[in-house]
């Protein structure tokens, strides 16, 4: 009967408000005892800790449930701060095993416990767990990546600078890019347009950015040759940027009058609606050269096969591993992965851009060495343990959490 009244007090307090300031004088042992008598499952193994690697203001709670006992309706997460003020933070469906309290201040020690409700009454409570929230300045699991990324950036910038200083840099032939001039030339001879498809991603996609830079170079060539250039886009911003760079290409070629804004048009944001529209353009305008450069998904082959059927020279390029095989099968030339990003340097031959290619190579070399050393260390490490830790270290270095 005494227990019952205790619960009534709790219930009242809960229904009236969430503050439990007055209930602090209730001995906690009473509640625990009650739980055992009525045999309602309580929460056990409650652990509270600062949410790691965040901007602070958050405590993570995890717990388990006692198994033998009556199943409660729900759980209530309780918290008290140093002043002793107790609050019910939230009620959770029964069966939940974790919660993030986002309503704490940094540097304050809070005490947490979880109560089990049955029929609106608190029937059991867990032990308490304490935690202090704090903010961190770095994701510890990302330090390895930070080091490697900074290293790479430094290498690339170093080579860009040395390129600027006029150091002569070699670049190997890239078949797909060597063919750009021929493709535009052929279109001119045949009196047919050039079609440029910058992919279906938006301007925030790095492949689209790379594609737009190449578009600028291609536009300059079409302007020099006096061939019309069609650019259908699937994103408004890409359309705007394409208009700018094509116009600029025509100005640089000294033919601003030949620039036709109407040739660069938006179709639709819809992946397959765009594919249908571009297919229509291909089959009606019959371009002699088609460029498919940027981010492509499943529409890659729909475009490439239709382009093929109108007899165009096709130069494709993407870094999407799943779509490269289709371009390889259906196009005359394919820029595979990194080759797409090398295109602007290749086409412009600007020393600083060539420098960045050299930097990329150095970075690749670094990773190749990392792989080879790692594999040797791991393999030999199976027989001679000191090397095993080397392999472990390298694996940890490239692990990102």
């Amino acid at each position: 009967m005494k227990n019952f009244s205790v619960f009534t007090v709790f219930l009242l307090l809960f229904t009236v408000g969430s503050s439990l300031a007055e209930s602090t004088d209730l001995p906690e042992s009473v509640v625990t005892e009650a739980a055992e008598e009525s045999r309602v499952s309580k929460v056990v193994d409650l652990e509270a800790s600062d949410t790691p690697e965040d901007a602070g203001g958050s405590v993570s709670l995890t717990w388990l449930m006692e198994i033998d006992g009556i199943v409660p309706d729900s759980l209530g997460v309780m918290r008290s701060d140093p002043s002793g003020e107790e609050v019910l933070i939230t009620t959770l469906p029964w069966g939940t095993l974790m919660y993030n309290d986002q309503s704490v201040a940094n540097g304050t020690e809070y005490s947490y416990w979880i109560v089990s409700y049955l029929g609106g009454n608190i029937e059991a409570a867990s032990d308490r767990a304490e935690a202090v929230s704090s903010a961190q300045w770095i994701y510890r699991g990302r330090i390895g990546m930070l080091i490697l990324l900074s290293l790479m950036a430094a290498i690339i910038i170093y080579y860009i600078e040395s390129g600027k200083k006029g150091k002569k840099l070699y670049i190997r032939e890239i078949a797909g890019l060597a063919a750009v001039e021929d493709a535009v030339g052929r279109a001119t001879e045949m009196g047919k347009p050039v079609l440029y498809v910058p992919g279906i991603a938006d301007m925030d996609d790095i492949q689209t950015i790379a594609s737009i830079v190449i578009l600028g170079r291609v536009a300059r060539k079409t302007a020099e040759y006096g061939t019309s250039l069609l650019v259908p886009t699937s994103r408004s911003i890409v359309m705007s940027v394409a208009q700018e760079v094509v116009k600029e290409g025509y100005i640089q070629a000294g033919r601003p009058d030949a620039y036709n804004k109407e040739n660069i048009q938006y179709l639709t944001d819809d992946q397959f609606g765009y594919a249908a529209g571009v297919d229509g353009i291909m089959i009606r305008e019959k371009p002699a050269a088609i460029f498919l450069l940027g981010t492509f998904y499943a529409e890659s082959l729909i475009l490439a096969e239709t382009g093929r059927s109108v007899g165009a020279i096709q130069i494709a390029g993407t870094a999407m591993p799943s779509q490269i095989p289709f371009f390889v099968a259906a196009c005359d030339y394919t820029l595979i992965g990194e080759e797409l990003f090398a295109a602007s340097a290749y086409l412009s031959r600007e020393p600083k851009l060539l420098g960045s290619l050299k930097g990329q190579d150095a970075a690749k070399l670094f990773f190749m060495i990392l792989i080879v050393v790692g594999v040797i260390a791991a393999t030999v490490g199976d027989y001679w343990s000191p090397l095993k830790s080397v392999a472990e270290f390298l694996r940890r270095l490239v692990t990102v959490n």
Partner: protein
Amino acid sequence: MADFYEKLGNIDRRIIFVLIALAVIIPIIFGMVFPNPVGAEPSRDLFNYVDSLPEGSNVLISFDYDPSTMPELQPMAEAIVLHLFQKNINIVGMALWPQGASLGQDAMSSMADSLGKVQFEDWCNLGYKTGGGVMIVRLGSSMSAVFPTDRDDVLWSEIPMLRGITSLESFSLIISLSAGDPGIIAWVMMAGDRFGVPIGGGCTAVSAPTLYTYLQTGQMVGMLGGLKGAADYETLVGITGGQAVRGMAPQSIAHIVIMLFIIIGNVAYLSQRKKGGAK
């Protein structure tokens, strides 16, 4: 003759289109079913592993998918459940995806009804629990602490078949039917690698290639990949005219048509080249 090969090598692609369309339409109209022999592949490995389990062992099936991938994964679920029941192995179902729990319930209860298996004695469904990999680690120390009740709030202690089960190590095999994350990878890393429980699974065709590496390293005992994997298991278990096996008929004919065209293309190409006709 060379002229013939040249024509053959440049067949109008519309002829290919018509044949592909027919290859798909005809099996659908006539409801064709093809024999589906299963080679030495991961699906057979999984079947053999399950087949070798002793009667009365416990197997955990995690239904980690939702309705969008049902065409591939539901036939797998049904075939595996049927196999386990036939072998008198107890099934404990659970899910890392919210909707997986009810899809698993469908598979288990429909098979149980037809085979006279009893819920709570031969099978039970613990339901969905959030937390992915972290939750799996906890299952490694105590199953009942994570699942104090089953999906319908029946207490763990009141389910007779769970009496001998304490942690993941009580299971002879864990099978994850997985449409993505969390799924097989979480089970392999958290349950397989940490607690040494054998892991098997089924996944969509799209994600199969990334999971093949786990077979290579022995972190998985076998795997069903996509519709073909589902059809394999149906065949091995002896389900005739199953959902997946039926889907294989148009697939098979279409694949054969494409392969025939590749052969035709090469015959034409090589003959032309022999005669010096090729460029």
